[in-house]
């Protein structure tokens, strides 16, 4: 490949052509300060395109330089094909860590749609390079992410939504993507909670034969989100509970009933009655805390009394045959 070092006037460079731009701008404040002190030292990398030049690397330097009134810039003109330039731009962006997930998705789309790189090569060669495992599924997700609305991309970027969460919402129904982004911004759920919410919506939708958007428009869910008396954490818990209850009506009802029966026993607060998780099993367990003989006797009396209660019998019946 031929490389020519030269000085070009800013006008010879077609700044508007961002074909080789991969990744976002980096800290231009710092760049500005550097330019103040040093001027433009590192040459831009450009390639000839018709009568003018395209930037392959150095968009931010170019912008800062022009802002500083610099009219001539050092460049390295590379004489190679578009594909090599694009690959260079990708490697450079990864090196500078200036790519977010939308940039990566965009780059993969260019590789696939413009350069016609086969899907398998993209998965095996490029995905690991961007830090992903080379799996079909990830590639599909990234392709979808590339198709997010610009407003969705902007919101995710502005609100610094984490990459893992964006990957998660990539394959949900398009009609609820905005709602999920808002929910992630407002309630800040952890990745596992986002996963759980998505699963629940999906399952309710499949079960009730309703589109996911209709599930999310449930007035109960809306009222939880609009409840000004609750903070984000409280809203998130209530929101999940409401979805879980709707997804698992029999289970929620039974567990609630068991809870109520246990409360009715009014057990000494040093005694803990442990029921088999999710009623899988018929053995109850007791934990008791005591320091001396008298306390133990008191606990024993309380237990004897409990054993005679009607609600205790009812509790045992529920556990035996929920």
């Amino acid at each position, binding site marked *: 490949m031929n490389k020519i070092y030269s000085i070009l006037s800013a006008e010879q460079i077609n700044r508007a052509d961002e074909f080789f731009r991969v990744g976002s701008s980096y800290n231009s404040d710092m760049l500005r300060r550097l330019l103040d002190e040093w001027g433009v030292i590192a040459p831009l990398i450009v390639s000839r395109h018709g009568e003018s030049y395209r930037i392959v690397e150095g968009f931010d330097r170019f912008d800062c330089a022009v802002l500083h009134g610099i009219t001539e810039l050092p460049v390295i003109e590379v004489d190679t094909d578009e594909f090599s330039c694009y690959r260079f731009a990708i490697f450079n962006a990864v090196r500078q860590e200036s790519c977010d997930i939308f940039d990566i998705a965009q780059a993969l789309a260019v590789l696939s749609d413009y350069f016609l790189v086969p899907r*398998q090569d993209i*998965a*095996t060669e490029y995905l690991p390079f961007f830090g992903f495992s*080379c*799996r*079909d*599924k990830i590639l599909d997700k990234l392709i979808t992410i590339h198709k997010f609305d610009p407003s969705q991309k902007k919101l995710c970027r502005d609100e610094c939504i984490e990459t893992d969460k964006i990957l998660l919402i990539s*394959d949900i129904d398009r009609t609820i993507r905005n709602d999920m982004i808002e929910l992630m911004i407002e309630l800040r759920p952890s990745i596992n909670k986002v996963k759980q919410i998505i*699963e629940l919506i*999906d*399952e*309710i*939708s*499949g*079960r009730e034969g309703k589109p996911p958007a209709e599930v999310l428009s449930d007035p109960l869910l809306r009222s939880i989100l609009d409840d000004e008396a609750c903070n984000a954490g409280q809203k998130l818990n209530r929101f999940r509970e409401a979805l879980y209850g709707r*997804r*698992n*009506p*029999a*289970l929620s009802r*039974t567990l609630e009933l068991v809870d109520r029966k246990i409360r009715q026993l009014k057990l000494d607060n040093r005694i803990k009655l442990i029921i088999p*998780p*999710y*009623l*899988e*099993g*018929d053995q109850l367990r007791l934990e008791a805390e005591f320091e001396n003989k008298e306390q133990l006797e008191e606990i024993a009396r309380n237990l004897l009394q409990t054993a005679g209660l009607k609600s205790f019998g009812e509790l045992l019946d529920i556990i035996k*045959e*929920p």
Partner: protein
Amino acid sequence: MTLFEPVKILIEKSALDLPYAQKLLRYFSETPVQEVDEIQQTKKTLHDYFSKNVLLITDYKGDIIKRCPGTRGALCCNYYVANIINGCPFYCTYCILHDYINCGSVMICANTEKFFDELRAKTREKFLLRLGTGELADSLALEPFVHLNDELLPGLKECKNVVLELKTKSAFVDSILKYDVADKVVVGWSVNPQNIIDTDEYKSASLKQRIEAARIMVQNGYKVTFHFDPIILVPDWQEQYRAVIRMLRDSIPGEQVAWLSLGGLRFTASLRKIIQDRFKKSDILSYGEFVPCPDGKLRYFRPVRVNMYRFMLKEIMAWNRSIPVYLCMESQQVWKQVFGSLPLERSALAHVYTPYPDTDLHEE
């Protein structure tokens, strides 16, 4: 495209001279072959993209026959499994193989002599060893391609106190009929309503084809088994499963059913994720309410399961009261709720649940 068309064969060097390996190489004479030192090592390096449709032929060094691992908290039915084939060309959404054998290839143990040595060492006078090849595979799905029955059935004729169950979702029974092994072999079918077969058991035989194959076996003097496993609580599951049982009743005399099992849909958390990711069109996770059980698997909430088993049992009893029905991987508690007693207290099942004299305590 045929059901199984390997693009490559990897064969362990030590397997090259095994007679069955030689035959396999002939069956797939058009397929490129690569010799490797150790399949298990190679398997680890197989990558998603390149491993699908690879046939691995091994001279398996570990135990081929093992006691069925069962599951924590469930009653054990003393079943033994022979994992001669690992992998399956069918593609059931709920298949645990997605989770176990993650490379998507098919592996065949070509040292069938070892299988017979182990079998002879395990069988005992007066005890019937129930053995199956369908734990990590469908027992018959690959039969037209790998002809395993030709390796196993003639030798099996000579073995005493054993019954081999070939569990399948296919209709490939012709190769069994070549041999006179009705006293040694039962063929078992997993059955589900055709709706579920369409959406969740890709590439497998239709319900009608399975029942017809069972009818042919019965006609030839064989006993058959059926497995309603996994039962999936789709919205009108009762009507759908009732219809399946009626179809069975119309074709198969109950007396010819050696045993019948019931098992609700169950899956590990990792399999759940695989289903969600790979089978977006499948609804099986949406129906019923799942809870984590002591063995770490998710199952339908107990009352729902009990209700489901009671319904199935009632319908099966209406077909024939003498069919030995058991629950697969269920707790004592569920057994008692469904049957009112434990299997050892039920004469039809006592012989199955009586612990097999332990030939292999060292395995545990």
